[in-house]
């Protein structure tokens, strides 16, 4: 709170004037009053978590407090460490997809795409355009669902429980679409090496268009609900500020970086999966405070809706998975008539495909930032090493910078708008 524009924090000023009886032309800092008073100079350490409602999942934070002012935060992670990377080394390439989906459990399509793209690069495999479009459509729907849930739980942390109901209601609409195209609400394992698992079912497109028609109104409703709510505005505006230079130094990506005004978006900067054929804007913020993060997420959902619509309009005809039988399963009906197809099927299911030795790193833009997948292949049917660069893991490092010298209540807002996914952090 120290280095802020005094005009940006009227609520704090008022609050301070009430609680500390400091009116008039004192500098606004919120902390100097405490410092003057000898009794408050004591620091004490408060443990928040790992089981705490306001830390999304099992994040543990060791906070050093001075009165109600946070002086330092040490995040302690690892409570959901699942050893997924180690488990993947024991699985065939096509089974690994199931595992990587469970890392960042709100962005499962992104995890699977990042992994499949890196394996495809190692195999030098072309993905048919229809599969690329289907991936884009699903990823953008997933981005909407993820942002909605982040918003819902974030608002819940700040006491706006209506947003939780509404966010879950509309997230269920997206999950219904996933269920229709792949059979599961979460972790659908829809994206395959070489394409996608199945073509979209008849009637899916109509459902998506219905969703696209509803969603803008719903987003407007959220803005009405939150954006005109004095409590919401006062708690978000001007809190958790992080400068653009510091964010870049800390490797922060995604909406957090864009909220500081840096238009870095891998979908635009290094297009993959035919994102270059889509027209969309990259929303950015101005100050890098919590309110900008909220705004950037809201606008990103609108942009995602645009992308989904363009994807449906321009969905190319053709195969949904590569025709290379060494990588993709043959169609079901061929198994009854073709011996060759049967052999391929048997080899793929029992042994999996082999990947030539090499290593690669592929990064895509997940709802939380750069999601990179590093795969080391040693020529066998199992990856020798798989590492995910998870955006939440890196973004979490910026939490101490955001929350230092602010009140506890603001730091809760920081965690809410940081949107860390512990499954992604710990893997």
């Amino acid at each position, binding site marked *: 709170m120290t280095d802020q524009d005094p005009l940006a924090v009227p609520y704090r000023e008022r609050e301070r004037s009430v609680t500390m009886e400091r009116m008039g032309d004192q500098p606004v800092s919120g902390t100097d009053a405490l410092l003057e008073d000898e009794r408050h100079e004591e620091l004490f350490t408060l443990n928040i978590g790992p*089981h705490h409602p306001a830390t999304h999942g099992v994040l543990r934070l060791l906070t050093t407090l001075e009165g109600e002012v946070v002086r330092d935060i040490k995040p302690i992670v690892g409570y959901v460490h699942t050893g997924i990377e180690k488990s993947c080394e024991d699985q065939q390439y096509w089974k690994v997809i199931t595992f990587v989906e469970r890392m960042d459990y709100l962005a499962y399509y992104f995890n699977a795409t990042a992994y499949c793209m890196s394996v495809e690069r190692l195999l030098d495999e072309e993905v048919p355009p229809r599969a690329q479009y289907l991936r884009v459509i699903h990823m953008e729907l997933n981005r909407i669902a993820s942002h909605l849930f982040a918003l819902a739980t974030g608002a819940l942390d700040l006491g706006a429980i209506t947003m*939780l109901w509404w966010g879950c209601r509309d997230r*269920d609409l997206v999950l219904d679409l996933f269920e229709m195209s792949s059979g599961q609400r979460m972790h659908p394992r829809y994206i395959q090496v070489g394409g996608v698992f199945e073509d979209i079912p008849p009637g899916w497109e109509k459902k998506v268009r219905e969703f696209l028609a509803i969603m803008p109104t719903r987003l407007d409703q959220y803005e009405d609900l939150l954006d005109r709510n004095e409590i919401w505005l006062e708690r978000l505006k001007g809190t958790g500020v992080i400068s653009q230079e510091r964010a870049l130094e800390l490797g922060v990506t995604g909406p957090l970086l864009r909220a500081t005004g840096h238009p870095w978006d891998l979908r635009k900067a290094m297009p993959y999966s035919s994102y270059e054929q889509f027209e969309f804007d990259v929303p950015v913020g101005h100050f890098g405070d919590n309110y900008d993060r909220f705004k950037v997420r809201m606008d990103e959902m609108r942009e995602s809706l645009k992308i989904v619509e363009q994807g449906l309009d321009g969905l190319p005809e053709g195969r949904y998975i590569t025709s290379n039988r060494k990588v993709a399963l043959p169609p079901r009906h061929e198994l009854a008539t073709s011996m060759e197809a049967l052999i391929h099927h048997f080899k793929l299911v029992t042994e999996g495909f082999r990947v030539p030795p090499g290593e690669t790193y592929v990064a895509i833009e997940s709802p939380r930032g750069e999601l990179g997948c590093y795969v080391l292949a040693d020529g066998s049917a199992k990856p020798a090493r798989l590492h995910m660069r998870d955006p939440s893991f890196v973004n979490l490092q910026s939490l101490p910078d955001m929350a230092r010298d602010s009140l506890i209540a603001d730091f809760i807002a920081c965690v809410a708008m940081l949107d860390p996914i512990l499954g992604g952090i710990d893997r």
Partner: protein
Amino acid sequence: MLTTRLDKVLNWGRANAIFPATFGLACCAIEMMSVVSPRYDIARFGAEAMRASPRQADMLILSGRVSIKMAPVVRRLYDQMLEPKWVVSMGACSSSGGMFSNYAVVQGADKFLPVDVYVPGCPPRPEALIYGIMKLQDKIMGDKAMGWRERYQAEGTGEVEPGIA
């Protein structure tokens, strides 16, 4: 005669006003949160009052994978809950370790605390969790032994506190 009736009334009350502790561990927690959302609405079964503190809750929904780092914490929270208490293990991971058979995951939460209802799935659909909670309600209504140590014949397994013993 009177005591059995009273028991019935008490159990009926307990079963229809379960206070779950929010305890999200991983992916399943997301589905657990959708259970309270308007479409599934667990309030129909009287279990919507999610409590953040274990001392105010009587049902622990273990939703997600329990890692070796988390297991002591879970056990501690369970010990802090007041009797009578029940545990629902949600998802393949907390029921059996699921697909993560490796160094980091406890292979089933029943290794370190008694579990009343297992809900399979990865993740289970919200309907499945609601069904599990309904099963638990049946169990509560028909069950006389309210302390879990009696229920599972586990007397004498309490932590020995040096000051007391």
